[in-house]
């Protein structure tokens, strides 16, 4: 089951198939008959096994928004080619994304700069707090997406790194190994208080 949805921080592998009479959801060892009948304005009837549920659904790009049982959830579809390329290429840390929406206070590096792990790459501001984005590992800055004062949404690509030149033979990406994910930054409050 190579397809996956991200819900919060967790990624859930799943697959969809079809029987003679219904769609089937494969989830772990479970296989459930499922169906979705959509009505006006996002309202829909969802069948999951024996359960019939009223939901509201909207999609945008790879995001699926579901209002179910009084709560709204956001699931992000992870296409296998993207997901597995990231997992196999050891490049998950190459893309530093915004932990929250905000704007750029300062950028300390430019493309081509070699950086060491922990080095400040940029400072962003969100919720009246400044957050320092530091390099998750040693590398070379490939792209800096935003300039000072520009705003961005959560998960926007702020900056990407490429590997430092390495000795030949070291560069074999281990098939199937999942690189350890390190959060790109720890928010460090620089100011706060009553707003």
């Amino acid at each position, binding site marked *: 089951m190579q*397809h996956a949805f991200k819900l*919060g921080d967790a990624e859930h592998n799943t697959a969809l198939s079809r029987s003679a009479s219904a769609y089937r959801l494969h989830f772990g060892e479970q296989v459930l008959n499922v169906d979705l009948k959509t009505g006006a304005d996002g309202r829909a009837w969802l069948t999951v096994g024996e359960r019939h549920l009223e939901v509201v659904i909207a999609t945008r790009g790879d995001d699926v928004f579901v209002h179910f049982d009084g709560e709204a*959830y956001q699931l992000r*579809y992870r296409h296998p080619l993207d997901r597995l390329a990231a997992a196999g290429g050891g490049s998950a840390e190459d893309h530093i994304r915004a932990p929250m929406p905000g704007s750029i206070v300062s950028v300390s590096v430019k493309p081509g700069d070699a950086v060491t792990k922990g080095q400040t790459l940029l400072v962003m501001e969100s919720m009246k707090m400044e957050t320092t984005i530091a390099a998750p590992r040693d590398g070379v800055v490939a792209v800096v997406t935003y300039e000072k004062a520009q705003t961005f949404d959560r998960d926007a690509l702020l900056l990407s790194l490429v590997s430092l030149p390495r000795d030949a033979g070291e560069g074999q990406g281990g098939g199937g190994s999942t690189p350890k994910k390190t959060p790109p930054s720890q928010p460090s409050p620089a100011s706060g208080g009553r*707003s």
Partner: protein
Amino acid sequence: MSAVPDTSQWPFKSVLVANRGEIAVRVLRTVQQLGLKGIVVYHAADRGTAAVKMADEAIEITGATPVASYLDGAQIIAAAKASGAGAIHPGYGFLSENKGFCQAVEAAGIRFIGPTPEQIDLMGDKVRARNFVEKAGFPVAPSAIEDDDPKTFVERSRKVGAPLLIKPSAGGGGKGMRIVRDLALLEQEIERGRSEGQRYFGDGRLYCERYIENPRHIEVQVLGDGQGGVVHVFERECSVQRRFQKIVEETPSPALSPELREKICETAAGIARSIGYRNAGTVEFIFGQQGEFYFLEMNTRLQVEHPVTEQITGIDLVLQQLRVAAGEKLGFGQGDVKSKGHSIEFRIYAEDAARGYTPTTGPVLVLHPPQGEGVRWDSGILQGGEVTSAFDPMIAKLIVTGSDRADAIAKGDAALRDTVLLGCKTNTAFLRRLIAHPAFVSGDVHTGFLDANPQIAAEPELPGGTLQALLAASALSTRPMRDIADAVPDMHAAMGGWRN
């Protein structure tokens, strides 16, 4: 009191709302009900919002940032002049408590729907306001500033009474703060505080004030006509806060006995009366567990949470603001102000409670506001709009009103459950967890309640079967997954995962 007045004699026939979002919509509603022309200014980021669509005229303003444009008084006054607006309603935030703006509006021959510049000035300066209120004989939290007279500091501190809080004057971030519960230890603690202040800030001067444990935030709505007429419109309990911002407000306060209620409301009215207040205003108090309360500050504008007051009294506060600004007298007395039932406001924020209430952004793909008896939805967003990081993340207010508090809570839970907003995460689920908490149900909350109960904000475990339902809905809504299932020939699909 909220009967539609005759506006034919009013000095203005149109009102420009110098604000955005839900409050612009709220003000426009009353303006248009009165048959007045409603005008808004808007930044391009707000094009397509409810206020712009609703207004009789909308004028685009510009600025370095969207927020800056709404803070640009000169540009807004120019827009008012260009549109022939007779009055400006500032809403809350932005320029609503800006004395200079108020003066400039009036200088331009436009009515400012608010207090006098002097009243803004007085109440805008926290220290001046506090001193004024104290001198007028109203309760302020006892305190002592070492700088006032270093020789008598210890003595004056003792008079503040226990428990008290010692803070370095130069300090911040909690460093060097000491709580003194036993006055016998006062001098010793002062010395420690001094040395810590010296160590952290290179400055040993101190300040001390009465420490109120687990305080409540209770405020009182007042109305004044600037012509001697002042009434209070009861209190609002605003103790449930996150990151120093209110998120749930209600009236009546579950903390007040009838006597205390009378006392705190009359205190507020007295403060407003003492300055001859004109406009709707709010007097905020800090309220201790022993029923002691102290003046905190006065907001000389319409308050975010004003709807709960409207719901239980039937008074349209915006209407009263307009009337007073038009020169009318209140025309009713304290005895005419009656309340019935219980009302709760929920601030719907675009934010992720589990991630430290960080703001969220996104498109408003689907919006189904809750409906039903006793449900009020004040919002500036529309389906198809977008929540951006340009403004405050409050996107709507849900106000529920019931016969009593339990009824209102039940209505609130149902309405939050029915609130559908897809595309941008909101705090509705968090609010439901909050109001289900036994402490909230019993009305036993304080301003540190959410900090003391972080599990309310934490992402709860998904209820059983929910993940499957979400994945099913998502998989069936995701083309690459559906396409694969659909591409399988019927016979093979019917065989399922057969192996030989």
